[in-house]
C-alpha cells in the first residue's frame, strides 16, 4: 500500500485519504469517499488520480475505474466548473420540468449531457434528487435549488457567472466541506472484549 508514487494528488488530499482508510475495517471501503476527494482537487477523476487511488486502497486502476464508472457522481471525463442537474422525474415533470429544461438548454446553448464552450457549465438531466416539495428543482454541484422558474434560473446563472454565489456553491467536486474531527475512538479489540463481557452478563455470567 505504498503511496510513494503520489505525485498528482496533493499532500493534503493524501493525508485526508489515509484518515478515511483508517475509519474502515478494510481499505477498499474508503474507495468512493476518496474518489470524491480526488474530484475535490480536479473536478473529475483524472487517470493519474485513479492510479494513485488504486495504490492507496490496494486495488488495480481497473478495479477503481470499474467501480467509479458505476456511479453517476463520479466523472471519468472532464466536466464544467458547475454541473447543473435538472430533475425531470415524475414529481418535477408534473410541475413543468421539461418546459424548464427546454428553457435551460436554450439559455445555456447546450443540450443536456454537454458542457458550455467556456467550460463553465455542464448540463445534466437527472433522476429524482428528493426535493419534490419544491418541484421543479435542480442541483448545482449538489446544492439544491427549488421552485425554479425560467427567470429564477437566469438569475442563478448570473450569480454563478459573476461569482456572487461562490460561498453557497463551491466548484464542482467539493462535496462535503465539514471534516470529521478525529479518527476512531475505540479499537476493534477493545470493542470485542467489551461486547463479550456484555454478552456473558446477559446470559447470566455463564
Amino acid at each position, binding site marked *: 500500500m505504498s503511496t510513494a508514487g503520489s505525485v498528482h494528488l496533493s499532500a493534503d488530499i493524501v493525508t485526508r485519504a489515509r484518515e478515511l482508510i483508517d475509519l474502515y475495517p478494510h481499505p477498499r471501503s474508503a474507495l468512493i469517499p476518496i474518489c470524491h476527494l480526488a474530484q475535490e482537487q480536479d473536478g473529475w477523476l483524472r487517470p493519474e488520480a485513479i492510479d494513485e487511488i488504486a495504490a492507496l486502497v490496494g486495488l488495480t486502476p481497473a478495479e477503481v475505474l470499474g*467501480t467509479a464508472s458505476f456511479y453517476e457522481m463520479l466523472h471519468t471525463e472532464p466536466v464544467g466548473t458547475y454541473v447543473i442537474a435538472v430533475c425531470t422525474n415524475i414529481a418535477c415533470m408534473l410541475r413543468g420540468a421539461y418546459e424548464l429544461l427546454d428553457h435551460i438548454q436554450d439559455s445555456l446553448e447546450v443540450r443536456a449531457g454537454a458542457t458550455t464552450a467556456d467550460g463553465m457549465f455542464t448540463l445534466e438531466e437527472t433522476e429524482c434528487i428528493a426535493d419534490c416539495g419544491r418541484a421543479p428543482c435542480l442541483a448545482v454541484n*449538489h446544492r439544491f435549488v427549488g421552485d425554479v422558474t425560467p427567470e429564477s434560473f437566469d438569475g442563478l446563472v448570473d450569480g454563478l457567472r459573476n461569482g456572487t454565489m461562490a460561498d453557497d456553491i463551491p466548484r464542482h467536486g467539493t462535496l462535503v466541506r465539514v471534516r470529521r*474531527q478525529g479518527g476512531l475512538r475505540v479499537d476493534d479489540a477493545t470493542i470485542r472484549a*467489551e461486547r463479550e463481557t456484555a454478552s456473558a452478563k446477559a446470559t447470566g455470567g455463564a
Partner: protein
Amino acid sequence: MAITEAPRIVTSRLEHDDSHTLERYLATGGYEGLRKALSMSPEDVAREVDAVSLLGRGGAGFPAGRKWSMLRKAPTTYLVVNGDESEPATFKDHLLVERDPHQLIEGVVIAAYAIQATRAFIYVRGEFALGLERVQSALNDAYEHGAVGRDIFGSGFSIDVVVHPGAGAYICGEETALLESLEGKRGFPRIKPPYFPAAIGLYGEPTVVNNVETLSNLPWVIMNGSEAFTALGAGRSTGTRLFALAGHVRNPGVYEVEMVKTTFRDLIFAPILGGGIPGDRELKAIIPGGVSAPWFGPEHLDLPLGQDEVGEAGSMLGSGSIVVMDDSTCVVRAAWRITRFFWRESCGQCTPCREGSGWLEKILRRIEDGDGREADVDLLMDVCDNLAPGVSWPPQQTTICVLGSSIPSSIASAIRMFRDEFLVHVKDGGCPHV
C-alpha cells in the same frame, strides 16, 4: 374530515430554524432517550422496540425489532443506516438528515447498543451535500458531547459512528447493494439467499440495516415507552409516519401523520396538509408508495394510510411517497418517465430487468410520440409478464432484487386504468395532451 391530534414524533423540532444544532437538540430533550436506553439492558431496549411493531420506514416495511432478533451471534456486528433515499418523489429522509441529524445519531447509538454493534455506518445518499455536512457536523458535536465514542455518558458502552457518502446510484437503496457499495464496490444487489444481512452482511459479518426514519423514531419510543407508541395507529401500523406528498397538490411537502387514522383524502385535501388540487381539477390517479407501487384511482381516496390496508387494496405504502396526478396528466407520458428511470438505474446484472426496462421505455416512447401501433399495448403487457410473471401484486420475481419486478407497476396500472388513452395516442398519431 378529521386530522388526529397525534404528537409529532420525528418532526417535533422542525419549527426551529436551528433544529440541526446540538444546542437546540439539547434544549428540546435531545439525547435523553439515549441516557435512558443506556440505563436499561440491551435486551430490554430491543424488547421495547420489538413491542412497538416499528415497521421499517424505508420501503419494505419489515418490523425493525424482528430484523434485530435475527442477528447471527458473532464477535463483530455492524449497524448500517440506509440514508440512500432515491425512490422518485420520496424526500422525507432528506428532510430528517438535513434538519434533525442529532435525532438520527441518537437513534443510531440506541440501536447500536440494543444489538451490541461493534461499529455503525451512516450511508447518506451522495447527492445530499448539505445533508452530509449536517450529519458530519452533528456527529462531531455528538462525539464532543460524549454521546458517541468511548464510554458514552459514563455507561461503559462505546461505539464509533462513521458517515459514508454514496456516489449516485438508485440501486444502492437495496440493502445488499448498499453493503456492496459500502465495501467500495459497484452497487450490485447480492444473490439471495441469504435473504437478510443479519446472517451475512457487511464484510460477511452479521449486519442490521435500518432506514433513517425508522431509527429517528427510537429516541421517542424509549422516552415515552411502547404503550404510548402503540396507542397511535392501528393493527400492525403503529405510530406516525412521514408522507412525502408531491405532484398536483397545492402544498407539496413532507407531513407526519398518524398511521391508519389518516386517509389518502385527508392527506391530499386537508387545508393544513396537501390543500387539494390546484385549480380544483379532478383527481385522475395516485401513486401511493413510490414509483414501484401500483396506482390507485379516486375510488381509493378513503383508504387508510396503513401498511396492511394499502397492501390488501393491491398496492403498497412503500417508501411513503404519494404522487397526485390530476386530469391534465398524460398517463402514457407518466408511465414512460417512470420506466425511463428504471431503465437508467437498472444495475444490469439480470437480463429481464436490463433488457426489459429498455424495451418498455422504447415502446412507451413511441406511443407517446405518435409512432405506436395498436398491438403495442399488449406487447407492453407481454414484456411486463416476462419481468413479473402474471403481472400480479405482490409481483413474482425473475431477478436478483425487486427493482426488476417493480418496473411493471406503473405500466400495468396505466394500461388497466386508462387503456383507451393508449389507443387514442395510436389512433391520433400523438399525445392528446400536448
